Each structure stands twice: as structure tokens, then as C-alpha cells.
């Protein structure tokens, strides 16, 4: 391993940016070690896309530093552009061109040697399962196919660093898992990826480390496991035949809970710290109290809980904010 492998591929320090009255970035710091995936998680308007746009040289920050593979984003934007690939939220491909023509156009614009361009386009079309549609205009493609083509376009010039801005937003679950598989393969090939997402499952599945942002600030970071154990909790869910049963169970189990248990009708959800230990205690307490639940479920902590704990909001129901309004800046 040489020095380059040890140095982080992406470094962001104290990034600030405002658009008019809207503070998009309020001092973001993050690092992405080479060859890893960082998941940038947060609701709409949290500053995810603006961070990506600074790193891809399309927006100049008001303050702070950012570098990609040691190259300063503000001072040497052209050199940064040669090293990065971007797949945005909007599947930025030309509808009237075929899939192959789109890839060739990007290859030409990325100044790939001309003789290799046709082969590179074919290779990517094969890899992204677009061979059958390769010579059809993109306007005939499905959402999943467009997204795969967009991802392929981001990879044309074999960039060592990839920015994927909500790569699966708006896709059906099947297309989504297809895109996830492709991203997984890219990482296996050694790419460094900064991935923004609103989907906790996506971050959980793809990211080595997760940075949670809200209102332009980093509010937590760590691996998915770390975040879950720090901010999430195991939930014991017990159901009864009546609300009265749940109410009595509430009284018996409250002492085990790390937060106030939630009761909805005849079901009680008790967040606990140490899952197995708490479950044994809970069963004993219920038995002693003469309470027999009709259902019993133990749920492992999820990033959803983490998000709720940190932001007071559920991730996917967050309010849309200026960041998603194109052209507002």
C-alpha cells in the first residue's frame, strides 16, 4: 500500500454555502477513505446535493475547503473533473439519442482516445444490461433503464471517484435492487463512492460509513452498526386481545424501557437497550403479572430509529425543501 491508498479520496472541511436566504451548507466536514462508500443521509434540503455539487465543481462554496484525490476543488476544477463521475437525481441523458449515442457523446466529451470509444460504449451497455435497447432512443426506456444508462455514462471515463446523488430515487423496488447490485460491483472494483440517499435501507446496504446531515450540518457519523447501537434501540412489541391488556402490560414493562413505550390500541412497543436480556425480563414480568400476549415480536434497531432519534422526523416523509427545486439557485 502506498501513501495514496492511505490518504482519503474525498476531504471536505467547513463547507458553507447559502442561496439567498437559504443556508444550504452550514459547516460540513467529512472524509471518505479511498475505496470505500460514504452514505450521505438526510432529508430533502439537508445539504446533500449541494455538497455533491461543490465536490463536482458545479457550485462554488462561500467558505471552506474541498478536495478530491488531493486536488483542490476550487483551485483546480478541471483536474477534478477528469477524476470524477457524477450520476445525479435526474438521469441526465439525452432522450432523443440512443443509449449508445449517449455513451459515445460522454466518452468524446471526456476526451477518451477516439479508437476506444465504440468498444467502451459496447462494454458498458453489456455490463448494464442495455444491449437490447442500445440503439433505441432513450425516450423509449423505462425509469430503471434510464438510471442504469445514467450510471453507465458516469463511468465512461473510468473515474476513480464517483458521486451518486440519490441514484435510486423514484425507482421501483426491483430496479432499485438492480442499481444497488451495480454499485456494489463498482466498489468491488475499487471505486470510491459518495452516495447521497433518503433511503435508509440503501445506506445500510451500500455504505461503509454513514454521515447524517440535517439543516446543512453533520449531526452524526459512523458505521450503520455504530449508529444503530448509539441512537437506535431494540423494540419489543407485544400484542394483546384488548387495549386493557396492553395498558396493564405498559405498567409492568415500563421499567425496562429506555424511552416511553408507545401504545397503539392493543399493541405495545417497548424500546429497550439490551435486547436478549430485556426480552427475558419482559417475559418474566408478563408471566408474573398473569399477562399472556397474543403476539410477540422483537425488532432490531434500524437506521429509521436513528434518523427519528436524531432529527425528530421519519426519513422518507421529510418535507421537500429548496434543494430539490432546480434553477432556484
Amino acid at each position, binding site marked *: 500500500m502506498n*501513501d*495514496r491508498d492511505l*490518504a482519503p479520496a474525498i476531504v471536505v472541511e467547513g463547507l458553507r454555502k447559502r442561496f439567498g436566504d437559504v443556508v444550504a451548507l452550514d459547516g460540513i466536514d467529512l472524509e471518505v477513505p479511498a475505496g470505500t462508500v460514504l452514505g450521505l443521509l438526510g432529508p430533502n434540503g439537508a445539504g446533500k446535493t449541494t455538497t455533491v*455539487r461543490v465536490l*463536482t*465543481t*458545479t457550485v462554488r462554496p462561500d467558505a471552506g475547503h474541498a*478536495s478530491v*484525490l*488531493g*486536488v*483542490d476543488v476550487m*483551485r*483546480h476544477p*478541471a*483536474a477534478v*473533473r*477528469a477524476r*470524477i463521475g*457524477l450520476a*445525479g*437525481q*435526474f*438521469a*441526465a*441523458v*439525452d*432522450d*432523443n*439519442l440512443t443509449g449508445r*449515442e449517449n455513451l459515445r*457523446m*460522454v466518452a*468524446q*466529451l*471526456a*476526451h477518451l*482516445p477516439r479508437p476506444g470509444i465504440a468498444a467502451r460504449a459496447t462494454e458498458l451497455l453489456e455490463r448494464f444490461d442495455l444491449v437490447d435497447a442500445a440503439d433505441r*432512443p432513450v425516450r423509449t426506456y423505462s425509469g430503471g433503464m434510464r438510471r442504469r444508462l445514467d450510471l453507465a*455514462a458516469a463511468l465512461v*471515463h473510468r473515474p476513480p471517484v464517483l458521486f451518486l446523488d440519490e441514484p435510486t430515487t423514484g425507482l421501483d423496488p426491483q430496479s432499485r435492487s438492480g442499481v444497488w447490485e451495480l454499485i456494489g460491483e463498482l466498489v468491488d472494483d475499487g471505486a470510491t463512492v459518495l452516495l447521497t440517499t433518503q433511503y435508509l435501507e440503501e445506506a445500510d446496504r451500500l455504505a461503509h460509513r454513514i454521515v447524517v446531515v440535517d439543516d446543512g450540518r453533520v449531526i452524526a457519523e459512523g458505521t450503520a452498526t455504530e449508529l444503530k447501537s448509539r441512537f437506535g434501540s431494540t423494540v419489543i412489541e407485544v400484542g394483546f386481545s384488548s387495549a386493557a391488556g396492553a395498558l396493564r402490560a405498559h405498567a409492568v414493562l415500563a421499567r425496562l424501557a429506555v424511552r416511553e413505550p408507545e401504545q397503539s390500541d392493543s399493541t405495545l412497543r417497548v424500546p429497550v437497550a439490551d435486547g436478549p436480556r430485556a426480552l427475558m425480563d419482559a417475559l418474566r414480568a408478563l408471566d408474573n403479572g398473569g399477562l399472556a400476549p397474543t403476539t410477540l415480536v422483537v425488532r432490531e434497531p434500524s437506521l429509521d430509529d436513528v434518523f427519528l432519534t436524531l432529527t425528530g422526523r421519519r426519513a422518507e416523509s421529510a418535507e421537500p425543501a429548496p434543494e430539490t427545486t*432546480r*434553477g432556484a*439557485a
Partner: protein
Amino acid sequence: MTAVTTVTAVTGVVEPTEQPSDRLFHAVADTITIAQRNLITLRRVPQLLIFSTIQPVIFVLLFRYVFGGAIHVPNVPYVDFLMPGVFAQTVAFGAMNTAIGLAADVNTGLIERFRSLAMARSAVLAGRTLADAVRNVLVVALMATVGFAVGFRVHTNALSLLAALALLVLFGYALSWVFAAVGLAVGQPETAQAAAFPVMAPLVFASSAFVPVSTMPGWLQPFAEHQPLSVVVSASRDLVLGGPTATHVLQALAWCAVILAVAAPLAVRRYRRAA
């Protein structure tokens, strides 16, 4: 001819080793790539071309056969007076396509992709306006054919006609840069169209394109006489109808130069901040 940039990862120092000749080569190559892309669209969606000629064809028929009889122009048949005006109207309205096309590219995120690529920054606008100029050549050729079909005759020679058409395409090219700035600024194709029309209407109609300026009210005449579209129309008429050409042609070229000098930097600035 490859652009090599040497980077020392530890210090972040970049030494661009790209030669100026490479830069120029890339700027030209990228411009052609973008222009090709836009021309493919034209080929694949020919409706774009057809619809943009339907309106001027209707104008030709309307003015040739409906209003024309009531409009008296000294010394020349009205159809010969009319056609240079229609050509100018056609290229002027055609320039709105630049706004609509670029706004669509902003909207789909394509501009964002282009800006994140190591391509020449000038190429997106240069390629787009070049493609629109090629398109204008086709449209003007088509309109000339329509003109000949309804009785338009050139009083000078073929070379003068070509010079007139070239001047008109150049004028359309200059206007394309104005509308490039408009399209990037609004970022929505529908808005671009709506924003472009009020700018275009006085330029096309308060002009010498369809009627002699001398028939207009006195307060309007100075504008109608000297605004760029009228000057271009006058120059084209001089070229196809005969008479001294130098003054109007030079004025028309000057207008094109001024429009380009103002609009191109504005459009480039807009491009840098777009999306």
C-alpha cells in the same frame, strides 16, 4: 493530443501540461460533439423542423395573397419585398429554439453533467448555437423554395441571394446567443418560450419586414427603421432587389457584431452559474 494533468496527491499541486493547441483542439472537438448531438435530435424529431416552418409559410401565404394586395410598395412587386422580411422573421423566431433547447437541458440535468465533465466549457453553448445555425440554413433554404413557388424573383444574381441568406443566418446566430442566455436563466422550456416571445414580437413586427416603415406613425419610425431586424431586412433587400448595398450590409454586420459581443459573455456567465 491528450490532455495530461500531473497531480501530486500529497500536496494537491496540479501542473497542467495541456498545450494551448490541445485546448483549442478540444474546444473545437467538443463543440462539434455537442452540435452533432443537437443535430441528431433534429433528424430524429423532424417535427421540430416542420413546425418551425409552418408558421412562416402561413405568413407567406397570408401576406402574399390576403394582405399583400392592400400594401403598396414603390417600384417592386410586393412578394419580392416580402420574402426578405419573412426570411428574417423565420431566423428570428428560430432563435427561440436555442432558449427552449438549453432550458430543457438545464431541466433534465444534462447541463449539470456537462459541467462535471472535463470538456471545454465553451463547447455546450458554441455547439448548441452552431447546430441552430445549421438548422437555420435548412429552414431558410426551405423558405426560399416556398418563396420561389409563390412568385418571388431575385432581381440581382444567385451570388447576391446567397450573400443575403448568409447574412440572415448570421443574424439568427447572433440572436441564438441572446436566447441562450434567456434559456439558461429561466431553466424551464415552457417559460423560455413565454419569455422569448415578448422580446421577439416588437423586433419582428415593428420592423420593415412586412410593410414599409414610412407607413407607420412618426414616433415608431426611428425605432422601426434602425432596429437590428429592419437593418438586416434592408440589407437583404438591397442584395436581392438591387441598388446600393454597402451601407445597409455594413450596418447589419455591425448589429450582428454588437449583439454577439453583448450576448455571448452574458450567456457564458449564465452557463457557469446554471442548473
